[in-house]
């Protein structure tokens, strides 16, 4: 299976921080419109695409929002102060370029600190090259959100770029959606909002869809770099089938089905037991009277940095496993 770098490189570059997903939603909408029966947008901004089938109602969720920085104050000299939208690390942000929705570019720096371990977001600022408050206000308003400026780089094995989290999940969902032309199951593809601030979009989407089963697609961590935190996940070792994270324990039926499919179809996989983090299935599985849910994860290094890295083979294997899963005749 060829790797569709073109689509992934577009997806990671489109603006869409949590609560401001309009642009990425438009893009994904256009990308999938011809392949689905119905598309709608809910109050919070979730994109919900329906591809009809006779089997079980399955919610497939990949979050389209990304982490960013919201401007809370502009000082007399035109420097912007900010708060985090989602898990922004001060260390990963220091010295990075950022971009606003209107294209304004800035750099993140900090007040001088003798001890860099004391680096905190409230000591940091964004410099957009404005020399007064008035000049800054011509380009940026309080409440605007900027994101890391993207630089998509790839070689034959890997991609590295900001915002694989979770545009790579969107990518996997879109590629699977295009491949499944006559679905057995009744498929609801959700490109969710506000995952990074607390799985908020998936919660409301699940409420309106009322799925029988839930599956989400998201990045996971890694344990295969020098002295990394222990985690039995490595790049280029296959797609990852989630056992647990902080937001859910995957339903055994979903987990076992995924494992059996991977074995039968010879798709390389690894089991993911994550002690931190969470994803949309955490919200889906406790919707209404409960929804058996699981996760297909894409092993990713340096999550929430500007150089998130994933293996092209792992990504393709995630697509393969998702397609097999969605074509399964479920007996639960």
């Amino acid at each position, binding site marked *: 299976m060829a790797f569709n770098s073109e689509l992934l490189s577009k997806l990671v570059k489109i603006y869409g921080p*949590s609560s401001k997903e309009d642009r990425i939603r438009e893009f994904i909408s256009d990308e999938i419109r011809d392949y689905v029966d119905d598309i709608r947008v809910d*109050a919070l901004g979730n994109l919900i695409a329906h591809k009809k089938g006779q089997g079980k109602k399955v919610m497939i969720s990949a979050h389209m929002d990304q982490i960013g920085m919201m401007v*809370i*104050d502009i000082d007399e000299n035109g420097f912007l102060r900010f708060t985090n939208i989602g898990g922004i690390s001060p260390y990963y942000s220091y010295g990075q370029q950022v971009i606003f929705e209107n294209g304004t570019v800035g750099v993140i720096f900090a007040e001088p600190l003798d001890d860099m371990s004391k680096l905190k977001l*409230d000591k940091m600022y964004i410099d957009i090259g404005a020399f007064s408050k008035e000049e800054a206000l011509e380009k940026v308003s309080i409440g605007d959100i900027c994101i890391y400026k993207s630089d998509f780089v790839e070689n034959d094995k890997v991609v590295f770029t900001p915002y694989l989290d979770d545009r790579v999940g969107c990518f996997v969902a879109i590629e699977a959606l295009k491949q499944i032309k006559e679905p057995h199951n009744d498929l609801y593809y959700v490109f969710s909002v506000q995952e990074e601030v607390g799985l908020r979009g998936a919660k409301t989407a699940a409420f309106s869809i009322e799925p029988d089963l839930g599956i989400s697609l998201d990045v996971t961590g890694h344990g295969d770099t020098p002295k990394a935190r222990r985690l039995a996940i490595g790049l280029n070792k296959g797609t990852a089938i989630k056992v647990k994270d902080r937001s859910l324990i995957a339903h055994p039926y979903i987990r076992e089905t995924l494992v059996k499919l991977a074995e039968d179809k010879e798709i390389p996989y690894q089991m993911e037991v994550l002690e931190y983090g969470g994803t949309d299935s955490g919200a889906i599985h406790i919707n209404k009277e409960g929804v058996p849910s699981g996760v297909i994860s894409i092993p990713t290094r340096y999550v929430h940095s500007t150089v998130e890295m994933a293996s092209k083979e792992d990504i393709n294997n995630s697509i393969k496993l998702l397609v097999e899963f969605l074509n399964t005749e479920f007996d639960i």
Partner: protein
Amino acid sequence: MLLKTLTEASGLSGNEKEVRDIIISEIEPYCTSLKIDRLGNIIAFKEGKANSKRIMVTAHMDEVGLMVKEIDSHGLIKFLPVGGIDKRILVSKPVLIGEKKIAGVIGAKPIHLQKRNEWSNALSMDDLYIDIGAKSKEDAEKYVNIGDYIAFDSEYVEFGQGLVKAKALDNRVGCAILIDLIKNVEDVSFYAVFTVMEEVGLVGAGPAAYEVDPDLTIVLEGTLAYDIPELDSHLVPTYLGGGPAISLADRTTVYNHKLRDRVVEIAEKNNIPYQFRKTSMGGNDSGKIHTSRDGSLTTTISVPCRNIHSPVSVMSMDDYKNTFKLAKAVLYDFKEGYNGF
């Protein structure tokens, strides 16, 4: 005065009855329907002209405080916090315990007896006790039971240039504004919801929002002001006297940008001063409301309060009036129908 009555009443999380009764007696004549739900939320509806959207305005009734956990052999009372209490504000404060409002004072080891290292650290809650003047455990038990709520005893006082000192401004100030809206807004249909147990985890708002199923919600709050001159402006969450604080993002909500921009526009059109709430710490009922059912839009408008969660919270009457004006203007704007949302 209503705000005096509301702030001097006791209504800790889970025990809002006294406050609820005051509110109901104020609003009942103005409401089309009114009910108390199973958790204790007041869900009132005031019918005006038909709106295309279902509108809700909320304020939480509960306040932070303490609860009796143990009575020792000397009749001194040990306690635990209800909601977010800074232990450093507790020493030497007068309190009222239980339904009978038994008077007590929070005591601690005198400074003479403290060791040098005790001077530099705040006393922990375990080192504090409440003295109700009882001679023994048996004596204290005549007046106080384990599980009784303990409210700060603090009088409503107007002082300075239009400032007010009281306890529980968070969020009786929101309740008072919502009561004023019910009395003064005609022509717009809206649900007025007074919630319970916000301070212990936004407990009441979820079930209330589930029942009302709003499209648009205004959350009225008292929020933190900390406007001392030494702070860089980005570290000042809100300024007292700076006008209603419009929320950007907090721990429970990233506020919808279109609705937020609309609220700002309405403030500017009506010459109402406003400010943004800069900190993203804290949260409020909006968190449960906007993610209820299939989702809805919320905005939070707050009155800045210094010394929040203490017996000596301070607010400005100008901020109060401007918050009322802004909330009212937003409600009237909703009446026109919101195609963009």
